[in-house]
């Protein structure tokens, strides 16, 4: 889901930077009010977890690959705004040091994976785990569902962003200037592979870590806001 340089036209890239700027600003303002100094190590661990879990490319035999983002987990433990900051840092490091995701696409990639994904996941988790005790298995299931839905909404949007490019930018004879695939190909491809495979990876990873924390450190689950 890391859109590289060259797949989105300049206008799309600019719009997503413009959308993300106020989100990043709001995230810093809100995290400043809510994040406690002793939660900072957990935020760093969350960002590191997101970074490394994205390196676990899962193959579709003979086809493409994909991976979990780990961002819904961070949102569950520290809230969506803190998660947004943590995932943004992981994505920027990936783009700058490893060329994973484009520099011009940082706005779009952060919108998908550092904004839509943690916020969607967080509210799904809140809704399903409403009133559940810290150790309840409904909480683990909520985490899995949140992971699945969070990454799928993000992947769908990435598909839309890819798919709009041939409409927005093409030469006089109809050749695309950026992503050559339109909505009819990009959206089913991105949405389909995440609905079928990668969404389940995010679901399992999120649910397993929440289950582990329920057993080993229920206070972390409680502090995540019940």
């Amino acid at each position: 889901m890391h859109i590289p340089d060259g797949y989105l036209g300049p206008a799309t890239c600019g719009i997503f930077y413009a959308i993300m700027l106020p989100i990043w600003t709001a995230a810093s303002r809100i995290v400043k009010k809510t994040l406690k100094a002793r939660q900072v190590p957990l935020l760093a661990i969350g960002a590191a977890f997101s970074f490394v879990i994205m390196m676990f490319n899962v193959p579709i035999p003979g086809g493409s690959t994909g991976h979990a983002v780990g961002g819904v987990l961070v949102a569950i433990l520290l809230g969506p705004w803190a998660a947004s900051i943590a995932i943004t840092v992981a994505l920027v490091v990936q783009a700058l040091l490893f060329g994973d995701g484009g520099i011009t696409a940082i706005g779009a990639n952060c919108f998908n994976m550092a904004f839509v994904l943690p916020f969607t996941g967080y509210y799904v988790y809140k809704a399903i785990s409403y009133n559940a005790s810290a150790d309840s298995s409904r909480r683990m299931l909520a985490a899995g569902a949140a992971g699945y839905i969070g990454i799928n909404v993000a992947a769908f949007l990435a598909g839309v962003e890819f798919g709009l490019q041939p409409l927005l930018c093409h030469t006089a004879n109809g050749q695309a200037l950026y992503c050559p695939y339109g909505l009819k190909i990009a959206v089913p491809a991105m949405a389909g592979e995440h609905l079928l495979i990668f969404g389940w990876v995010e679901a399992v990873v999120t649910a397993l870590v929440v289950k582990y924390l329920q057993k080993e450190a229920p206070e972390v689950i409680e502090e995540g806001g019940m």
Partner: protein
Amino acid sequence: MKITTKLWIGLAILIVLSPLGLLLPDHFKAGDAWGEWGTDTIKELVGYIPRGLEKLSSLWSAPIPDYAFRGWEEKGLPRLSFSYIISAVVGITATVIVVLLIGKILAKKDD
């Protein structure tokens, strides 16, 4: 043991296991992620390289492109796995330092 210590250990295990993210796709002959093809692959897929894409795709040259040391791309899976692990260490170190700095600036001292 503190829970954060346990989680750091978990991260270290993930770093060591990270080459699975390289070896499994290789084993199952899976290619690039959708929409993350290089220009050669694009040309094979659609018959031409979109002009804007060609220009922008070389905009940034990352120090460790695709988690592989420069010049090691063709040196086989063991070395690629090694550079993958080093990349994970480098990437996580950078990520953690930046988040700790942001946390230091933002987080409330009184607790």
